[in-house]
């Protein structure tokens, strides 16, 4: 039986690996074989090889154990916790700088559009504090970034 989804603790794990499709196959098989509660899986490739961002829906200590399993795979060069951040693009006449500072997120203006980046809950707070002052808005959904990586626009 897979472990039941908790729905309350999303832990993001950033995995870098080499070995192409075989390695990806092994990673996916491990997720399935160990019944990891995968809530999200994003795959990408850059100059250092392949990168998977896995969101696990389980308590943090379980996520650490799953990360150890993933880390033990020979193809995996790096596996560790990542921060989940969300980007919101909005047009507003309100004081978004003060609101961003109070919510603890990063925000800047780009060609008339405010780009707000931060943990999803904090982005929620930021948007709520602007209330009816938002003229238009798009939320891009949560993405992962390795913990400790410098902040800034995504």
């Amino acid at each position, binding site marked *: 039986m897979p472990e039941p989804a908790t729905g309350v603790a999303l832990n993001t794990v950033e995995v870098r690996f080499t070995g192409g499709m*075989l390695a990806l*196959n*092994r990673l996916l*098989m*491990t997720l399935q*074989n160990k019944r990891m509660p995968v809530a999200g899986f994003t795959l990408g490739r850059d100059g250092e090889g392949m990168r998977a961002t896995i969101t696990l829906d389980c308590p943090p*200590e*379980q996520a650490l*154990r*799953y990360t*150890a*399993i993933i880390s*033990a*795979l*020979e*193809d995996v*060069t790096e596996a560790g916790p990542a921060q989940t951040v969300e980007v919101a693009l909005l047009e507003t006449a309100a004081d978004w700088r003060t609101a961003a500072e109070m919510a603890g997120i990063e925000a800047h203006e780009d060609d008339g559009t405010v780009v707000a980046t931060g943990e999803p809950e904090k982005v929620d707070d930021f948007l709520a504090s602007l209330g009816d002052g938002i003229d238009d808005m798009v939320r891009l959904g949560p993405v992962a970034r390795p913990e400790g990586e410098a902040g800034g626009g995504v």
Partner: protein
Amino acid sequence: MPFYDALPDYPLRHVLTRHEQAAAHAADGYARSTGRVGVCVATSGPGATNLVTGLATAQMDSVPLVAITGQVGRPALGKDSFQETNVMGMTLPFTKHSFLVEDPNELYPTMRRAFEIARSGRPGPVLIDVPKDVQFAATNDNGYRRLKKAPPPVESPGLERTAMLLRSAKRPLILAGHGVTLGGAEMELRLLAERTGIPVVTTLLGISAFPDDHPLYLGWPGMHGQASVNRAIDRSDLLFAVGMRFDDRITGAVHKFAKDAKVVHIDIDPSELGKVVKPTVGIAADAKAAMRSILGHLDDISEGEGCEQWREELATSQEPERRRKESVRDEYGPIQVMEAIKGTAGPNLRLVTDVGQHQMWAAQFFEFTKANSHITSGGLGTMGFALPAAMGVAFAYPDDPVWVIAGDGGIQMNIQELATIREFGLNIKVAVLNNGYLGMVRQWQQFFHNRRYSETPITGPDYERLTAAYGLSGRTVREGDSVVDAIRWANEQEGCTFLDFHIDPEANVYPMIPSGMSVNEMIEEDGA
């Protein structure tokens, strides 16, 4: 073909088993008994698929194995070619790692890397799939890339805390698993037990990690472990678990397992910590290094001074089992067979068991005083394992007596290997406990399915005539015959002999904790 064409030019001893599954188990038996990497080879397609059970068996019990499979040539890959199969994909869930060698220049470093992966950290099986045209290609020793992973460090704040817990516990137990023998930590285990005076229990695969005849050894717990050992765990206030993974056959109902105990869990695989039982202290480290370090924190303890009252209590609790054992040792049956083998084979005996009732009887009634002298398939519970695994043991230790104990179900699953055993003149003695049933399943049917013996009665050949057909000698032994004489006769014969012991069809293994239950639901005897 290219591999076998080149083979005679190299100083490798090749053993042609009659089935690839047996090759994997034989390599497994060699690895378990020696601590070295076992190697098996199979051809592509069905040869490769036949290895699957052997690889899964090795993976479940952390056995270092390298399996080399042939593959169709690179141009034929992905075209449903003759004897093409995706053995890599098929074995992904139960290999530690696998390689498809597509560049001949990668062959040499891949081989070396495979051996290092197989034996490093938590050992396991590694598969190397080599296309035919790569086998034909010329290549040189062109270097070796070292593994990226270093062993986990032993510097852990948990070590000192563990030492404190060991000092203060009133009813502690050491629970030692296969990781102790895999890590060559038998001496450290013994030193730790003797320094602290803490009694030792082992898992099924941990048997022989600690001498059975040592006064601190209690036995092994679990579904068919000794009742007194299960109760000792239930009463303990500290469980020092090393090189084991809290298998469900040990814990039963996890929430009731060692419910009053603090748990120290040491394992080389960090993902094992907290997987089943949440430890008070979890240490991801090699068993040998961790126990050495803990011993360093216990320098000031006088040997064996701790928990004397606890040891006395445990000794008293084991008395009824000792008396029961004494009372049945002269009755014809499985226990008498075990006693007779134990009594005649000498201290160098290496015992290889299959899976089922006999496996439990053997583990209960033998005394293992030598590391790696008890070989069995634990995690996967692979019937058919014992006979081929014993071949690996016999090749590793040609001068030691090697006994196989199997049931009449499991022995038929790889019986063809009698031909290999005969060909190589291996000195393997086989004792089959023949009850005409798949005995363990029948026992479950008796207890939990109202004796509906659905598809468990089995027939088999006349083993005396079968072994004669293979050019070997065998005997049938029934109630009224002398078990000791039969065992003695087998020991006196040159090479492999086969004893077919006809036993009570409804003999049961006791005690038994039903699956998913606790020590409180333990069944200790017929009608209980």
